[in-house]
């Protein structure tokens, strides 16, 4: 840790025009260090998902820039952006978006295929506790299990940054904690930087770095000195 991995500078983004115009990001600035577990916290409509999408290179800002390892995304062509996502990012969404006619192992291989130095699929399956389910299809799994697969798909790429958009949003308390613990494990074990969007205040306690958003600006940008393991979180 300590090396700057991500820089957000004066990021602005609005939707709609005229009266219907809505400023979602209104000049956002912060940096994230390599290997950090960073939580973007805020109520719905605070612009956290939009911010995550811009960082992920699947949305573009109106103003300002995102720089990853010194490369500015705005200067990249679409092809370069695709390559950037392919090499550096792993995505976990609230909805698992698994491919229904591929089994668990194959869904994870979908991620591994994209990487130049993927992790061992079997190892990831073990880490995620999916060894017993690896030949099942997504519709044979519970929501939590499906989310594990989706994390596996992102992690197996061995990404520089793991982007998680409300990964526990559709899960119950116990499963949510298990999933958070898994993300935490991956962060520790593989050293990926984690940027997690959530509206769940409790999750900030497991993060190295907490950025609170409201109305499109950063309200708090704190380093968490007393983080606790995910499994001990309560809400």
């Amino acid at each position, binding site marked *: 840790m300590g090396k700057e991995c991500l820089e957000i500078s004066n990021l602005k983004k609005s939707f709609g025009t005229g009266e219907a115009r809505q400023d979602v990001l209104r000049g956002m600035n912060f940096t994230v260090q390599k290997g950090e577990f960073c939580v973007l916290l805020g109520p719905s409509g605070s612009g956290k998902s939009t911010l995550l999408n811009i960082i992920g290179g*699947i*949305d573009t800002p109106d103003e300002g820039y995102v720089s990853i390892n010194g490369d500015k995304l705005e200067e990249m062509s679409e092809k370069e952006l*695709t390559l950037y996502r*392919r090499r550096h990012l792993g995505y976990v969404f609230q*909805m698992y*978006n698994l491919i229904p*006619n591929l089994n668990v192992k194959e869904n994870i*291989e979908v991620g591994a*295929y994209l990487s130049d130095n993927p992790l061992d699929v079997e190892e990831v399956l073990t880490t995620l506790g999916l060894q017993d389910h690896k030949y099942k299809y997504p519709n044979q799994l519970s929501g939590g299990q499906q989310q594990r697969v989706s994390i596996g*798909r992102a992690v197996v790429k061995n990404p520089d940054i793991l982007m998680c958009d409300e990964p526990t949003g559709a899960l119950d308390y116990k499963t949510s904690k298990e999933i958070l613990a898994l993300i935490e494990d991956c962060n520790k074990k593989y050293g990926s930087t984690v940027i997690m969007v959530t509206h769940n205040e409790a999750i900030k306690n497991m993060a190295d770095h907490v950025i609170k958003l409201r109305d499109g600006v950063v309200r708090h940008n704190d380093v968490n000195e007393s983080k606790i393991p995910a499994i001990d979180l309560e809400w």
Partner: protein
Amino acid sequence: MRNPLIKRIPRELRSDWHKYIVIILFMVIMIGVISGMYVGHDSMLAAVYGGREELNIEDGSFELSKKASDELLDGIASGEKADVRAYYIDKGNKEADEEVAKAIEEELNKQVTEGIEEAVRAQCAAYGITDETLIQQQIDKAMTDSFDSALLEAKESDEYQKAVEDAYTEAHDEVIKKVDEKWDDIADRYNLNDEVAPVPVTIYEHFYREESEDNNNDGTEDAVVRIYKSDSEIDKASFNEGRAPEKDNEIAIDRMHADNVGVKLGDTITVGGKEFEIVGLISYVNYLTLHSSNTDQMFDAFGFDVAMVTPDAFDNLTARVHYSYAYKYINVPENKVEKADYSDSFLKSLITQTLVHDSEIEDYLPEYLRQASNFAVSDIEGDSAATSILCYILIGVIAFIFAIIISNTIDKEASVIGTLRASGYSRSELVFHYMSMPVIVTILGAVIGNVLGYTAFKNLAVYLYFNSYSLPTCHAVWSSTALVKTTIIPLLLMFFINLFVIVKKLQLSPLRFLRHDLAKTKRTKARRLPAWSFLRRFRLRILFQNMPNYVVLIFGVVFIQLMLCFAFGLPDSLNHYAKEAPNMIFADYQYMLMDYMDEDGNIIETSEETAEKFSLEDLLYPKAKSSIREGMGSGGDESVSVYGIVADSSYITLEKDTKDGVYISSAFSKKFGIKEGDEVTLNAEYENKSYTFNVIGIVQYDGGIAAFMNIGDFNSTFGHKDKEFSGYFSRNEITDIDEQDIGAVITAEDITKVTNQLMHSMGKFMDVFKYALIVLSASLIYLLAKIIIEKNESSISMAKILGFRNGEIGGLYILPTAIVVVIFSLISFVIGYMLMIWIFHAFMLQMDGYFAFYMTKASMILSIVYLLIGYAAVSLVDFRRIKRIPLDVALKNIE
């Protein structure tokens, strides 16, 4: 690492097998039937053309009144024109010499006799002898004593020599004068003065006899059979079954004739009073259709047969031998024009050589004009037009189905696509992935279709041709047309249409996929609906929400209607034409004469009151070629009959002067969209001549592609003599023209005969199409309805969760579709019908002749009813499908 997405493809095929089975079935039927038609067609033509080489078809034949001498055959084979003038002069001189010699002899005898008598009488007078008896005795004595010496003396005199010479010269001059007088006429008639290069030929003896054939040995004649020897070197036969006759009681007969009259191998038939066992069923290379005479409008495979027997058996038959000789050019002509030039040149040699060798020509026919060997070929060649049109319609339908399926799949998998794109999958990787399914299915369909095309469906096509003509056995040949039209083009079309749809769909950003924001435009407000009942409004909402799917369904219904119109309309149009044909003919009898003069040079006249002379030239109207392969399906040029009509004709009224133009038939005008004031250029088929005419009017005549002009203008245009004409129109039968002067008689019956034959050979073909189309229509509706239900699966599941009963859901989701289908099956019938009229016109452009698209009312109603019945069946399946949608679909797939 292999892309793990590849593993989805076989699973996708398995999980959605009924959808893909329908598509593959669709492709297999389409590609199979059409490639079968093409392969059958090409194989048949290959067999026919191959046969021409292999079985040594003639370039023409002639028949002489008696067996030709070797000198005559040598003369004809040389291709040189015989010197007819010299022959006549020589012959004249010989006759003249004999006459002159006889006259001189008589005159000399007379003069010597008179001289002797005169001298004796003078002597007697000098001696005073007056007794006449005594004088006569002295004369007789002098005659006996000195006649010979006096004769000799007279012959040796200069005076005599000169007189004889003068007489011969005068006689010879007279012969030349007489020959020249007559020669001009003869030479003119046969263009014998034209200098043409001789066309040397090889001549083959090809004698035949025509015997009576009794198929069931009941003593009555059932057919006339033309019998050749089995060892003939020219115009050989291919054996469909069996072998050549080896014993003198064996015979091989035409396969088609045998089929028609119901005899088979091993049967015994009576020919010329002798019993023969059938040991072979054959197809003579020059009798693909059983035209007994070249002037027959239609062939007769019942009443006429061709056969072969051993040379000994041939010699034992009793009917007169026809001294027919076949010939082959030593230098092969390259094209039609050259063929025509060759045959003209050959005919001159034939006429002159037979003349100078004191023989007579009974018949002459160059092969390229021979109906029996060309009728079937030109018919088969023209056949692919209908197949092409159908092929293009179906390719459109399949491409369109795939585009919908792909588009729906992408909609359904939007989140997955968004996630994959967000994770770094490139657009091209996804394009490749989504392209693989249609490509695999198309290839699968194409492979199975082609395999069936080369086997089962080819046999079907060949069977249809065998039903009509005496064709040789054929083997499947590689048909590049079939491959291009049924496989390459559909594959390319499928590839590019899908590529277009997929690339366009995947153009969207990953974010829009993740948000399911795939619509191009968005309505900001919901449509306002009148205050109808809730269910009605709900239904309307479903209709609005699924608008794109309904648009697709409507297109599908239009396609189906188009196909049904095709299936019902084509036989209807043929039947209608057959029914109307007799009314279309403008003269009840149209007598085509062999020549306007009879053998004696008298103009052929008739006492029939309604008879009216006309002239006719067959020209060609160039058609734009519309197919990939030259000739195939293009149908060649359109044949146009140009009529010369007498002034004040009671058959065709030409109001305007035709000095500067022609009238054309309404069929000609409709087929090529030619209007009054346009120009048409017509070409002579066997000569390099073109004629350009202004169209000055349209004659209401739908029976054929024709042009009309005044007979005078006709003669000056085509360089005919004033008294020349081609035949007679008549309302009644003409009985006072010698049959041998009549080339052909065309009556209403002949036109119906042609359409009947067309129905006979195309009827079964159309039935195959009709059933194939009905299956295809049902599958198309099935696919489209399935797509609508699939798209709404989660909404239906949600409606179930909310407590709606299956019946109510059916009412909500099936009823709008039913209403749309019913309304649009009516509207699309009109669209399909109009489209079909247009397509039919395009189809007609590829065929010879013209008739318009026609559907009976019953067919119109049936085409709609068929579609609705198909839809009703599909609705039942849909309802079952709705019932089976589980409740958790809505809960599991929130995306």
